[in-house]
């Protein structure tokens, strides 16, 4: 009799699912091991549902045609992610302007198989003007003015989590990022990168803790969210993040500043595997990012 199929892939196999022109979504903390592999594949024309500096990485690497983002902040003291800001101001990317409630409504609509969901947040703002996909309409029950948000359908959602069993039953420690489950429910396929693969019995010991059932692919990448945090595993690497932001800001200001190109080369293009990346970061540095 045949056996139950495992859902384990390595990071390169999972990244190979991403093709030019796809819509991909990134959870929070960003699944950086997968982001680096996607950059390494030199995929183009992606529509990216993401926020902050992970989005900035993909824009800096030239992978992005369109962003669906509620927030592209740049970290401490940098109000706007530098590569996002430069690309948007130069018209190199299309910005599908939205906000958290509009984004989650569109994702919920996709998950529920509905063409749209109504939302109130954004009524009276410029959002429906700058994003013509958002339609102001009159509700059929009470006659109120609401925004109809069309279903947002990612091809692949990439999220980071603490553990999974081999069958894709994922459990977060300390809760998933706030948007992660919306992304998973809306996406055609889900790839979860995890700190650790655990036994099926460990999952069944507390099934209510399972946050994602039967993810399409599980990728085992310890420290996979670096330089961001992973709850219960490590805190974010602030100097590393600041270095990236400084590089990206310099590149945005001066055009062809080599610092950002070097960063992408050294940390995204050259390391073949996630382990190669970790070797470049160094174990001493990684172990310094304590877990509490």
């Amino acid at each position, binding site marked *: 009799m045949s056996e139950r199929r495992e859902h384990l892939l390595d990071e390169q196999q999972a990244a190979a699912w991403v093709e030019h022109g796809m819509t991909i979504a990134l959870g929070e903390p960003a699944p950086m091991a997968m982001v680096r592999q996607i950059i390494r594949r030199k995929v183009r024309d992606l529509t990216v549902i993401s926020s902050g500096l992970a989005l900035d990485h993909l824009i800096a690497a030239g992978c992005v045609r369109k962003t669906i983002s509620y927030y592209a*902040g740049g970290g401490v003291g940098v*109000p706007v992610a530098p590569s996002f800001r430069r690309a948007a101001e130069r018209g190199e990317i299309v910005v599908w302007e939205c906000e*958290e409630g509009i984004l989650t409504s569109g994702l919920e609509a996709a998950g529920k198989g509905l063409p749209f969901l109504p939302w109130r947040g954004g*009524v*009276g*703002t410029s959002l429906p003007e700058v994003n013509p996909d958002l339609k102001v309409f009159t509700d059929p029950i009470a006659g109120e*003015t609401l925004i109809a948000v069309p279903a947002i359908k990612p091809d692949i959602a990439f999220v980071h989590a603490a553990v999974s069993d081999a069958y894709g039953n994922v459990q977060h420690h300390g*809760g998933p990022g706030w948007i992660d489950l919306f992304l998973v429910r809306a996406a055609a396929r889900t790839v979860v990168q995890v700190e650790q693969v655990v036994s099926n019995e460990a999952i069944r010991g507390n099934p209510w803790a399972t946050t994602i059932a039967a993810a399409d692919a599980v990728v085992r990448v310890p420290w996979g969210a670096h330089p961001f945090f992973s709850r219960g595993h490590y*805190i*974010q690497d602030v100097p590393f993040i600041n270095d990236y932001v400084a590089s990206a800001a310099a590149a945005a200001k001066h055009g062809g500043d080599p610092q950002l190109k070097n960063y992408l080369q050294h940390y995204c293009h050259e390391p073949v595997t996630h382990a190669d990346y970790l070797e470049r970061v160094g174990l001493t540095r990684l172990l310094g990012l304590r877990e509490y």
Partner: protein
Amino acid sequence: MTGEYTVREQMAAVLARDLQDGELLQVGVAMPVAELAVRLAHLMHGPNMELIFFGGRMNVHHLEYYPIPEYGWDNRVVRWTESYSDRGHRFDQLKDWGRRVFFIGGIQVDQFGNTNLIGIGEDFNKLRFRGPGSVGTPTLSSHVGRYHIVLNDHNSRVLVEQCDFVSTVGWGRGGADARSRLGLPGGGPKWCVTPLCVMDFCEQSKRMRLRSLHRGITVDEVQDNTGFELLIPDAVPSTDPPSVAELDVLRTRVDPDGLLRGT
């Protein structure tokens, strides 16, 4: 003794006094003054306040010392969480957000308290300055019981006659019914607190109005640094300075590292 306080401590104290016990407090990103104001109120008079941060909901009234994280996205701040406010569905209980108070900044704030996080320029497709995006502020500002606009700088580049783009509706184009006409259930912006002063909104016109001046600030100074005509009452009081007790809690329990004591 009470003479020794910074303007940021003043701002935190003003905001803290407006917060009522039992309210839920949520602060936007990169707003240390509001973050610390919330903690000050919680410890001073809010044993039933709940702080919403990073999806976590916490009550830390019983803690001796509750530091602000050194980094805005430092997940360690959730260590005191009792629940996640958004177990995968952040906006599922918006109907109860009347008890929630929010704090918001902006790259532009206009005379009716509308704010802008989208960008600056005439044409959305050719922005002179691309902003970070609206985060959750359109939804939050539509539903919370009230909110405060908190600015790190008071100048006419931020405080403008009309926002180039509106990401949160304050009082629209004015009038007491500006929000109810849009069907927005939340109470709208109450104050705009800056390093120079506290402003509120005229009950009828909903235009921004000077409410109190921080120590050493003049009416002219405020108006000169504001990009629209501010309503100025005949007598403008001084902002009540932080009390000894407030400064004590602030400095020993909320802000021992002196985040607000620097300039």
